[in-house]
């Protein structure tokens, strides 16, 4: 198996390997496999080698960097100064960012090497990456299947060993669902934990940046670097961040794991439900006690989310009007210029959500839809708070199924259902992750496809969350039981 971020940083800091050497190997790997996977929209080879040289110089001068020489993939809705930042959209296809996102800046300062920008559903709206206007990303475990979304390129890059760590953004499940589909760890910290300065906004009361990695420990290492207050983002929380990476537990003695009554897996195919029954038993074997908890309003999560997120998106995406960024299509007057630019620049799903959101916010409907959804959001968050009086962590499926085939979800609502388990958690702002927990062979396939276990803790309890996931991962080693379809991916 390829090296972890922890191992690479140790080697580079001890000068057993140079960051340049690690970078050259990673770039060669991308050259060999990304033609099949399509994880990257933009490669940053030159920038990567230049940055690696800087990391080697700093290490040579005696510095120890937490991510020294670790190959990093960046979701293409995060700005990197001087490189194009497309959001997977025609409207920004040629836009070059004039500044760098805080989370990315912190990773670069910590020694990570930026290999490129990864594919996503347009403006992070989708669950399969199929809504990207700029490229197709395939699941490294079955090239006929989607990698999940919206951060599908980042998940696929880590799964195909085309990066060791990656950034994602999660609004309703956009880190956790692709992580589950691609057999990697995907972690969404508490809302407000990580600065969003330089992340192109989708739904501002929900968006959060988080890492992809092959191990929980690596995800923790990235989190330790990116978490914390940033003066450039007023919504970033000014609370001390406890370091997590070297403080993760490996047993579950005394931990109460809540199993949500309403998240019964009865409706899932038996083979899928079995994976979760086994995962819950594995938690028990590690010392945890399973307790029954109830989230009576979680079933309203999807309806609530699909009013709030489009409402915020319709407002945030108003800035793409042909004036300040990217595409412009001329019209007879300024209004027609706006209308034609947006018609030509946005894809079908983005238009759909702008229309839903505009409708939900329009005069006469605002109280019926938007305010109503915000009130239900209060109830959902209160349900979680009550459940956490009885348990320390909640476990559930991360996605409603394993990765599906391309074009399998033509009805928009069937795609939205993929995030049934992640959306209520996002509405409550809670920290949450997906860790590999087994595999099934789908009815319409021959290759075993990975599944993810979603774990959730109360606000700001990231260390507890990562600790429970670490214990589960170390004891079960589910990720290493599967082999990607990409030749020599884990060679």
């Amino acid at each position, binding site marked *: 198996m390829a090296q972890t971020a922890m191992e690479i940083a140790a080697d580079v800091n001890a000068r057993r390997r140079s960051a340049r050497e690690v970078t050259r190997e990673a770039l060669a790997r991308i050259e060999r496999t990304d033609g099949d996977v399509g994880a990257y929209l933009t490669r940053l080879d030159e920038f990567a080698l230049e940055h690696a040289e800087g990391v080697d110089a700093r290490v040579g001068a005696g510095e120890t960097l937490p991510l020294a020489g670790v190959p990093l993939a960046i979701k293409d809705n995060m700005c990197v*100064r001087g490189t194009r930042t497309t959001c997977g959209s025609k409207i920004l296809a040629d*836009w*070059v960012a*004039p500044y760098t996102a805080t989370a990315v800046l912190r990773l670069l300062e910590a020694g990570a090497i930026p290999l490129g920008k990864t594919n996503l559903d347009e403006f992070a709206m989708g669950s399969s990456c199929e809504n990207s206007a700029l490229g197709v990303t395939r699941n490294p475990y079955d090239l006929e299947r989607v990698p999940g979304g919206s951060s599908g390129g980042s998940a696929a890059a880590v799964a195909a060993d085309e990066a060791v760590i990656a950034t994602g953004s999660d609004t309703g499940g956009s880190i956790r669902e692709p992580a589950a589909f691609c057999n990697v760890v995907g972690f969404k910290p508490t809302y*407000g934990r990580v600065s969003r300065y330089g992340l192109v906004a989708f739904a501002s*009361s929900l968006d959060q940046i988080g890492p992809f990695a092959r191990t929980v420990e690596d995800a923790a290492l990235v989190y330790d670097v990116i978490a914390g207050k940033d*003066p450039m983002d*007023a*919504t970033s*929380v000014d609370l001390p961040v406890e370091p997590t990476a070297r403080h993760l537990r490996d047993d579950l003695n005394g931990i109460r794991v809540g199993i949500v009554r309403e998240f019964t897996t009865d409706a899932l195919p038996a083979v899928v439900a079995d994976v979760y029954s086994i995962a819950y038993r594995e938690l028990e074997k590690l010392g945890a006690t399973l307790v029954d908890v109830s989230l009576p*309003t979680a079933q*309203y999560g*999807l*309806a*609530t989310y*699909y009013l709030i997120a489009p409402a915020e998106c319709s407002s945030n995406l*108003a800035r793409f*009007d*042909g*004036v*300040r*960024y*990217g*595409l*412009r299509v001329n*019209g007879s*007057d*300024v*209004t027609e210029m706006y*209308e*034609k630019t*947006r*018609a030509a620049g*946005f894809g079908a799903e983005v*238009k759909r959500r*702008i*229309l*839903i959101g*505009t*409708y939900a916010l*329009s005069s*006469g*409907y605002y*109280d*019926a*839809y938007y*305010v*109503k959804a*915000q*009130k*239900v*959001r*209060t*109830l959902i*968050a209160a349900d979680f708070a009550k459940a956490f009086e009885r348990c320390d962590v909640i476990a559930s499926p991360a996605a409603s199924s394993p990765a599906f085939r391309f074009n399998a979800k033509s009805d*928009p*609502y069937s795609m939205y259902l993929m995030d049934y388990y992640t959306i209520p958690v996002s*509405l409550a*702002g809670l920290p949450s992750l997906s860790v590999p927990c087994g595999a099934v062979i789908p009815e319409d396939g021959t290759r075993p496809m990975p599944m993810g276990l979603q774990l959730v803790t109360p*606000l700001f309890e990231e260390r507890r969350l990562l600790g429970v996931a670490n214990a589960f991962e170390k004891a079960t080693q589910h990720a290493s039981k599967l082999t990607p379809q990409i030749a020599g991916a884990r060679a």
Partner: protein
Amino acid sequence: MALAAEDAACTFGERAWSMPIDVRYVAKLARLALSPDEVESYGAQLTDFLTHVDALRELDTQDVPATAQVIHARNVGREDAVTPCLARDEVLAGAPQAYGSYFRVPRIIGAEE
């Protein structure tokens, strides 16, 4: 006073659920040109979508406060200090059209009236 206003909004809100959707009007508000095919397909999809979100009416939220964000931040302030800002040339380089140090837009004032 506040209560009366909310009552009025709720009454109006109830009526809102069953109204047909004028997709052309919504698209106009969103500054989005739609083809005739799009008007038809989005109209059907939005109507279908609203039947899904209709489920929220089952919940009594009369006395429930709305949640705008979950971390209970209040009036976040900072020092009113001068700090470096983005490089103007780099920002303008990303615009479809620039003129000197300005974004260039089609004529808005004094167009034929």
